[in-house]
């Protein structure tokens, strides 16, 4: 089993999720309760006849850090992100946000974490960009008083003003990707998981994404970025790993 841990942060959890830290969780170690996102001994096998796609993956993401995980197509990066996001369960091991698994407190887990899935799915084709963002803000259960302002702020921050009244099925792939990224950051989550976020983005879109990540880092958030190893990324990451044969190894 490969174990990787970043250095412990100076401020542990308190400013961002005090209510989570206060509650005692039996399944988590005290140290795990104070870390934004932890994967411990995560195993996942899709078919009994096949080798496991993840085999005892350990990963710790601390406050204010950015991590890149690469790997060949089919290496298990998306599976890793889906488990980290609480979308699917590991066969063994656990994913925890501030010491909680998604099964223990799904609503809080999803409030603190946001996932940008790979591809161009997850949008309602017949809704306008503004409707889409407002809908997402509502089901993200944002403070009702903030919804309108947050949506408008997001439209501006992600340079979607010209597209705000346009239906999603009339957007280009790059514009859809920008909207998907905007949805990911709309709620100002503490932990952001990005699966191949540069797909279809032009230089302007990549710049908008970079600004959003800058904002996340400025508020001591946590970033996990997955993309194929061949992708050339200019940005700085605090840690870089490659997923190969079900395990994380240093790049």
């Amino acid at each position, binding site marked *: 089993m490969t174990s990787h841990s970043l250095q412990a942060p100076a401020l542990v959890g308190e400013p961002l999720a005090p209510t989570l830290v206060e509650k005692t969780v039996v399944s988590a170690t005290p140290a795990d309760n104070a870390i934004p996102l932890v994967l411990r001994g995560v195993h996942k096998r*899709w078919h009994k006849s096949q080798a496991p796609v993840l085999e005892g993956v350990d990963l710790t993401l601390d406050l204010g850090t950015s991590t890149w995980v690469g790997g060949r197509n089919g290496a298990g990066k998306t599976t890793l992100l889906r488990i980290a996001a609480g979308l699917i369960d590991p066969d063994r091991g656990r994913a925890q946000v501030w010491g909680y698994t998604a099964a223990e407190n799904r*609503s809080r887990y999803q409030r603190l974490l946001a996932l940008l*899935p790979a591809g161009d*799915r997850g949008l309602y084709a*017949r809704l306008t960009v503004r409707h889409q963002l407002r809908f997402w803000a509502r*089901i*993200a*259960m944002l403070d009702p008083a903030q919804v309108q302002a947050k949506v408008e702020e997001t439209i501006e921050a992600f340079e979607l003003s010209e597209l705000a009244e346009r239906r999603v099925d009339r957007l280009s792939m790059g514009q859809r990707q920008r909207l998907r990224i905007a949805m990911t950051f709309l709620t100002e989550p503490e932990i952001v998981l990005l699966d191949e976020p540069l797909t279809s983005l032009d230089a302007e879109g990549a710049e908008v994404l970079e600004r959003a990540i800058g904002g996340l880092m400025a508020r001591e958030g946590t970033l996990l970025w997955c993309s194929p190893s061949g992708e050339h990324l200019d940005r700085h990451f605090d840690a870089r790993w490659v997923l190969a044969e079900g395990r994380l190894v240093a790049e």
Partner: protein
Amino acid sequence: MTELRRSGLAFGAVMRRDLHVYLSYRTRIVSQVLTPVFSLTLFYYVSRLVHVSGFPSPASYFGFVVVGIALISVLYSCFSISEMVRQELVAGTFERLLLSPFGAMRGVVAMTLFPLFNAILLAALTLGIGCALFGLQLHWATVPLSLPALALALLSFLPFGLLFAALAVATKQGSMGTSWVIALISIVGGLYFPLTLLPEWAQTASHLQPFTPATELLRHLLVDSPLQTSTVTAIAKLVGFAALLLPASLFALHHAIRLGQRRGTIIEY
């Protein structure tokens, strides 16, 4: 209270989303209006062509069948949830619900709201067309009572939709079996003809589901058809079915979602 309010607003957001999507397909609205017109025209002439025993006049059978036609749209709406869930799975938007604090369970329940409101409007439209074009006589004294009766009926119908939604999550098929189930319900629920025409075993079976008491009660309130049992019995049956089936269907949906998450198949479609 804040959490409850946010949850209520999220339910409202799902309804608004479905309304926007519905309104974006303009021809669907025209089609929905035309369907009851043609159905009622068909049964208006059937009521005049065939003498049905137990009905003193063609108008009384027409009144009987109009309520059945109005309710069939409500039934279709209940069963349409599974297809909606399948569309969400294919579009990847179900994944978004799973990743939201609102969650997939509440999301699926919220998805039932717009189709049901739409079906109620359609049922009202069907009755309105029946009155305006075909001389249907409503029993106005008890018509207002049909609204709470319909709400109760919906609570007893909804579990069937949720069960099929659970099946859609588990099997990735939206309309698996829904058409024959609706056809079966329309027969044993007495939507188009009286249950007395059915064989005895089928009549017995017709009392094992909520559609028969709901149809009879609504007919009684809307067109003053005689009830086979008392009003209290019909209401008690509906309350019983709702109390039994709603928790069971929510349990099934929850487990279908959790099973999909454990196996990892929740993201498949």
